[in-house]
Structure formats: structure tokens, C-alpha cells
């Protein structure tokens, strides 16, 4: 029997194409059953293209809906959308009429297609850092503003203040509750004391940008953005109260968080995950090199700047000695001064915009590696159980439900991971395209400024017509 898997918030991946299931948003709970009123339709290669509203959960022909969840048990060509509700027996198709609100929900959709072709309905920004000085500690808080059309939120807008350790809490919570997903990285917590001033404007701004990126990545994620903790983080007036409550829960749930089965060695990592692992290793290595090169360039540029700053005034001094040459020499001096300014802007931009993105991706890859490790553990657990069953096979010919569940979990994990990886690859491609184009642009601007400066010197040097 083809068992039906229950995922979080109804997200699944098609077993055939391994792409995201289209079910994206807009569902609500009714009498213990999730009712879906929207699914996504599209072609896997090109991403999800359009949203279709369904009036009832039904079978869809496979041709039109490639982003499917599970194949219809009856026709095999459509999709049933199952939603997580543990109160329901496995595999029962939900046959409920859609609530009347479906069309109005659809109308609330903000159909601003971004590059993914996905519709965004949750906008989070981090801004306005403020310094707080208490007797015990000094820290920075950031304003987190949320705008959304999602039904999970009571209000369309929220604004709260959070500090770094709140972000850190959120990330830990996400990692605990969504172990199969790739959680975006936070900027490094620790900075070398003395080297960086934690309260300097530059540092706070760089961190703000990174935190902003962190929340945006979560908000754009089809699963993570529905996470309860994330919701609380964005909306709760008093996060600390919630945190305390969560502590008690955590101790109870501890078991589900851990997948570790002592000492069992994974028989074989599926090829595609092995490939992801290899890819990440190389990728991190290359990014590290690029990071070092970029830093070295900035260092060289600053040293160049120091010399250039000395170079310009020498022309000015010389101009002071001369009569006819005074003006041209002053002109050269001023021109070199302009080049200095342009160079300074260039290296500032690179420090502020280029390096943080590289760092984020290095950290991102590290969290990806962690998820991979967790996946291996889940698979290991499954294999261990399967082996144990095989030994007892003569006694009990039927595979126990427990093992089947475990297999489901592995498949679920694989599906989530693959989807996240693909998502990550897409983001990476876009981010790096933007980053590198930005670098090229900054350099072009720098050269253009220098070009203008030098071109303005030429007329000063040319003999004036009357002296000719």
C-alpha cells in the first residue's frame, strides 16, 4: 500500500519529479481537518507559474499539475492534497467543500511575482538599530517590521524590537522544530574583542543587513515561514515570556528532536547527497579563497590609497615653485585627490557589501552540511531498524509499522532536503550574480570617476590658443 505521509503544514514533494508540491498557502483548520483552497500549478523546469484556486479537493490530471503531492490512489494521475492532522487516519482523502472565503483569500494575494515566480505575501524588514545601556549590559536592538496578508497573522502589520540573542533563539527553535530543513545562517555572534568595536556604526550596520537577510530568507521559505516560532518572533510583544514557556515544552519534546541512534554506520549515502556534500566542501573552500582574495585586495587598495594621498600633494608643492606650470600641476594634484576619493568609496563598498555576502554563504553552507549530517542519522536509524527486522523475518513476515514510519521519515527528510537544496542553489545563483555584477559595477564606477578626473586635467595642460 502506498502510504501517505504527513508533513508540516501540508508541504510535500512529488515523488516522481521531486519538486516542491504546489500547496503553498491559504488553508485553514476546520473541524480538525485542513482545508485547502489554493494550490500552485506550473512546470517543474520553469518554476511555479500561477496560482489556481480549487473549490474542492479533487483529482487533477497529471499533465496540468506537475507539482503534485501524492498520486491519486484511484486514478494515479492526479493529486490528493493531504494535510497534517494526526487525528485523521492515514490515507483518508479529505472530501470537504471549500469554504466560501476562498475567493476572497485569493483576492488578498499579492501577486508580485519575484524572480522565483513565487508570490510573496510576507514581508519582513530589520532596521533602526538602537543602543540600550543597562546596569548589567549594553546591547543593540533592531526593529523588526512585518507586513503580511497571511491568515495566520491576526494583523496585517507588526513592529517589534529584537536583539541578537532573540534572533539566535529563533534560529535554534527553527533548527529544533524543522530538523529536515536548511535554516539560513545568522551573522557570527562573537567578534574578536579589540579588533572590532561591537557598537561602531559600521559593525551594527553590517549586522543589521545580515539579520535582515536572515529573516527575509525565512519569510520567503515555503515551510519555515509558517513556523510557529517564527510567527511568535515577529509578533509577540513579550518574547521572553514565550521563551520561558518554550523551555518547558522542549524538555518534553526532546526525544523527537534527536534522531541519533548510537553507533550505527550508514551503509551508503545516496549518490545525490554524497554529491551535495562534495559540492558544499568545494564550494566553501572556494568561497574561503575568494574571501581572502577580496580582503587582500581591500588591503592593497588601502595601501595604494595611502601612497596616492601622499602623491597628490607633491604635485601641489611643485606647483608652488613654478610659474607657468603652477596651474597644470595643481590640476594634477586635485585630480589625484579625486581619484583618492573614488578609491576610498570603492574599498568601502567592497568591505560593506561584498565581504558580508561571502561570509553569509560560508555559514549557509555550514548549516547545509549540518542538515546533511542529520539526514544521514535518520537514514542510519532506518537502516538499523530494517536490519533488525530482517533478522527476525522468519518469525514475523510483516514489516512493522514502526519501520515503515521510519522509512517515511527518511523519504520525508530527503524530499525536504532536496527541495531546500534546490532552493538554495537558486538563491545562490541569484545572489552571486548580483554580488559579482555589483563588484564589476563598483569597479566600473571607480574607473569612470578617475577617467573624468584625468580628462579634466588635459585642458589645463594644453597650450592656450593665444600663447601658441
Amino acid at each position: 500500500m502506498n502510504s501517505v505521509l504527513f508533513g508540516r503544514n501540508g508541504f510535500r514533494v512529488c515523488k516522481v519529479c521531486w519538486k516542491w508540491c504546489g500547496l503553498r498557502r491559504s488553508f485553514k483548520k476546520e473541524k480538525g481537518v485542513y482545508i485547502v483552497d489554493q494550490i500552485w500549478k506550473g512546470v517543474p523546469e520553469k518554476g511555479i507559474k500561477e496560482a489556481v484556486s480549487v473549490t474542492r479537493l479533487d483529482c487533477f490530471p497529471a499533465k496540468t499539475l506537475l507539482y503534485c503531492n501524492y498520486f491519486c490512489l484511484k486514478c494515479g494521475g492526479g493529486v490528493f492534497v493531504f494535510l497534517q492532522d494526526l487525528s485523521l487516519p492515514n490515507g483518508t482523502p479529505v472530501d470537504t467543500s471549500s469554504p466560501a472565503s476562498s475567493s476572497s483569500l485569493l483576492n488578498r494575494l499579492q501577486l508580485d511575482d519575484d524572480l522565483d515566480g513565487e508570490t510573496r505575501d510576507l514581508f519582513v524588514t530589520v532596521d533602526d538599530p538602537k543602543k540600550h545601556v543597562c546596569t548589567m549590559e549594553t546591547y543593540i536592538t533592531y526593529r523588526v517590521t512585518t507586513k503580511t496578508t497571511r491568515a495566520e497573522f491576526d494583523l496585517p502589520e507588526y513592529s517589534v524590537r529584537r536583539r541578537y540573542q532573540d534572533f539566535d533563539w529563533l534560529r535554534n527553535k527553527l533548527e529544533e522544530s524543522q530538523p529536515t530543513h536548511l535554516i539560513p545562517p545568522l551573522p557570527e555572534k562573537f567578534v574578536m574583542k579589540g579588533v572590532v568595536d561591537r557598537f561602531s556604526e559600521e559593525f551594527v550596520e553590517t549586522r543589521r543587513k545580515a539579520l535582515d537577510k536572515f529573516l527575509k530568507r525565512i519569510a520567503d521559505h515555503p515551510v519555515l515561514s509558517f513556523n510557529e516560532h517564527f510567527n511568535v518572533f515577529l509578533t509577540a510583544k513579550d518574547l521572553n515570556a514565550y521563551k520561558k514557556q518554550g523551555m518547558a515544552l522542549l524538555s518534553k519534546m526532546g526525544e523527537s528532536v534527536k534522531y541519533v541512534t548510537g553507533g550505527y554506520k550508514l551503509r551508503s549515502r545516496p549518490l545525490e547527497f554524497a554529491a551535495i556534500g562534495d559540492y558544499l566542501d568545494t564550494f566553501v573552500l572556494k568561497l574561503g579563497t575568494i574571501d581572502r582574495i577580496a580582503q587582500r585586495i581591500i588591503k592593497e587598495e588601502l595601501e595604494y590609497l595611502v601612497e596616492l594621498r601622499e602623491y597628490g600633494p607633491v604635485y601641489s608643492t611643485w606647483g608652488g615653485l613654478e610659474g607657468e606650470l603652477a596651474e597644470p600641476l595643481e590640476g594634477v594634484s586635485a585630480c589625484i585627490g579625486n581619484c583618492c576619493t573614488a578609491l576610498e568609496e570603492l574599498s568601502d563598498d567592497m568591505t560593506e557589501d561584498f565581504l558580508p555576502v561571502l561570509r553569509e554563504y560560508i555559514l549557509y553552507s555550514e548549516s547545509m552540511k549540518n542538515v546533511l549530517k542529520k539526514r544521514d542519522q535518520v537514514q542510519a536509524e532506518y537502516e538499523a531498524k530494517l536490519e533488525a527486522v530482517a533478522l527476525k523475518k522468519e518469525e514475523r513476515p510483516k514489516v512493522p509499522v514502526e519501520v515503515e514510519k521510519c522509512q517515511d521519515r527518511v523519504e520525508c527528510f530527503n524530499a525536504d532536503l532536496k527541495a531546500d537544496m534546490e532552493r538554495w542553489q537558486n538563491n545562490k545563483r541569484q545572489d552571486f550574480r548580483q554580488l559579482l555584477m555589483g563588484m564589476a559595477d563598483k569597479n566600473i564606477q571607480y574607473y569612470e570617476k578617475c577617467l573624468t578626473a584625468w580628462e579634466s586635467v588635459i585642458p589645463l595642460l594644453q597650450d592656450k590658443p593665444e600663447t601658441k
Partner: protein
Amino acid sequence: MERPEGEQRGASGSGPAGEAEAGSGPVLEEPGSGATDTTMEDCLSKKIEITVSEAEKRTGRNAMNIQETYTAYLIETRAVESQTEGQCSPPDSLWRRYSEFELLRNYLLVNYPHIVVPPLPEKRAEFVWHKLSADNMDPDFVERRRIGLENFLVRVASHPIICQDNIFYSFLTQEGGWKEMVNETGFQLKADSRLKALNATFRVKNPDKRFTELKHYSDELQSVISHLLRVRARVADRLYGVYKVHGNYGRVFSEWSAIEKEMGDGLQSAGHHMDVYAASIDDILEEEEHYADQLKEYLFYAEALRAVCRKHELMQYDLEMAVQDLASKKQQCEELATGTVRTFSLKGMTSKLFGQETPEQREGKIKVLEEQIHEGEEQLKSKNVEGREFVKSAWADIERFKEQKNHDLKEALINYAVMQISMCKKGIQVWTNAKECFSKM
């Protein structure tokens, strides 16, 4: 290798000059200093075309029979007229080495003290950025020196006065026996060793304000240009670093592209552009060296300018000394004639101790003194004339030099600006190409 010989020659040059100190005869009699007006059209450079076309490494034995390696330069001269007539006659050519150029310049310096004699290119590389070798045999250095030497010859040949010098003409046309010819002129005897003592200052009572200012200017010019050259070399070093580190992107992008699917091609070709970017700096800085050489020429010109000032200072000093000498002699004479001793002197003491001189003795002394006074007055007169002539001709040449300097430096600065502009354009081009690759990712 070349240097010991050059120094040896230099030392032998200053030796006899030291003895000849007293005999630094009237400058007026020097050839060419008679301010025979020469227009630019009469310049040697208009009649013949001078090129230093080749440099060759040679090994030989010097006077001490010690093996040495040196570079010889091929000087080619060709009459301009024959060219215009279409008969392209083969150029006259001969080989000279750097030390011979030095000898020529020393000769010119001594014989034309009122002229700002064009400088030679540096003996060894200075103010270069680290990538360039400081080796005298380095092909780049030899090449730059070849250009410098040619420039020197052209400058001398275009100078309205010194282009007429016979020794210079022979330098261009007569390979053998030239050194002997130079030495026969005895120019070394005329060299004033006091000019060589760099730190000596002569306390001149009435310095010519113009020359003081000029001296001050040349000091400042020298210091500012050498500062400029030093900083420029450092700037070049740093710029080199910035470009070359970008080259590492080329490698990483290419390695990275191997693990990427969609991004791979864009990265790979962007990496190629980064390689191009890194490589482009070599040509840029090599070209900039030419600018540095132009500045260097003026760094050395500052020294030549100062030589003229020093010469003037020395003449003024001699003049003042002569005036002083004359005044004291006149006073002595008066004292003897009137018998009064105005100031306390040893002579007064001796006369008091040993009694008065006989009138005959006194007469004789007065006569000798009067003769000396007369002689001194004549000398003073000629020194005055000589000084005036010097100032006149030196100033004429300084004016010419200033004009030349303004013109040359403007041109050098324009070239420099054009170089910078082309560097910026190259930079824009490379980054635009790279951007296009990135955008395809």
C-alpha cells in the same frame, strides 16, 4: 663593471684641476661663450639626424687589464639634407660607451659653465618600482638608457651654443682617438675644484638676487622631483599589487566554475577577464616608467642648473676677494706714504721695535704696492667684465632652459594624463566584459 673605470676617470679629472685652481683663467676666452648668436635653424640637430640605435653588451679589458663587461651604444648620424633629396645615404655610425658620454658631458660642463648642460640618464637605476631590475645589464634598463642617451645627444645638438662644439662633433663622427682629443684640450686643468666640493659655501657679500633665487629654486625642484619619483615608485608598487591580486580571482573562478552547472560558463569567462585585468598592469607600468624617466631628466637638470649658479657664486666670490685685496693694498700704500698707521698691525709693531725703514726701502715698497694695485685694478676690471658677460650669457641660457622645461613638462604631464585615461578605459572595458559574464550566470 663600468663604474670603476668611470670613477677612475672622474678622479683623474679632478686631480689636476685642483692644482689649476689659481689659473681658472678668464672665461671670456672660452670658445662659444662669446655669445655668438645662433638661431635654432643653425643647430646641428637641423642638419643631422642623431640616433642611438643599438646597445650591445661587450667584454673587454680596461686600463688595469681587468676583465670588465660594459654596454656599448651605436650612434648613427645622417645628414638631413641628403634625406630630403631622396638619396638615403647610409648613416655614419660608431660605438660609444657610457663612460665616454660622461667624459663628453664633463668636458661640456667645464667649457660652458654658463650653460645648463643637458644631463645624462642615470648611471644606475633609481626610483624604480620593485618589478624592475636595478641591474645595469638588465635589458629594460639598457633600453631606457639608450633612449636617455639619444635624448642627451639630441638635446646637445639642438642647443644653440654647445651644438657648435668641435669635440661634440667629433664625438659623433670620429670613433678612434676621440678620448685623446678631449684630453688634449686640457679641460681638466680648467676645471675649478671648488665647484666639485659640494658642500663648500662661499660667503658672498653681495649675491645676485636672481641667482640666489635660481639656486634656491633648483634645490627645491630637485627635492620635489625626487620626492615625487620616490612616491610614484611606491604608488606603482601598490597599484601593481592591487591588479595582481585580482588575478587570483581568475584562478578561483575557474576552479569554482567546475562545480557549478548554470553559473559555470559565466564564472569561467569572467575568470578569464580577471586574468586579462591582472596582466594589463605590466604594460601600464612599463609605459609609466617613461614618464618617470622624463621627470628624472629634470631632476638631473636641477643639478645642472645649480652648477651654473655655483659657478656664478664662485665668480662673485673671486670678485669680492679681489676688491678686498685691492682695498687692503691701497690702504697699505697710503699708510706707507703718509706714515700713519691707522690700525694696529704687526707691521706697525715691528717698525716700532726695529726702528723706521729707510725712505728708500719705503719708496720701493710703495712702488711694488702701486704696481700690484694697478694690476689688481686691471684684474678687477676684467673680472667685472667677465662677470657681466657670464651673467648675461648664463641668464640667456637659463631663460631658454625655462622655456624648454615648461614645454617639456607640460608634454610629459599630458602624456601621463593620457596614460591614466587609457588605463581607466582599459579598466572600464575589462570590468564591463566581466559584468556581462556575471550577468549571464
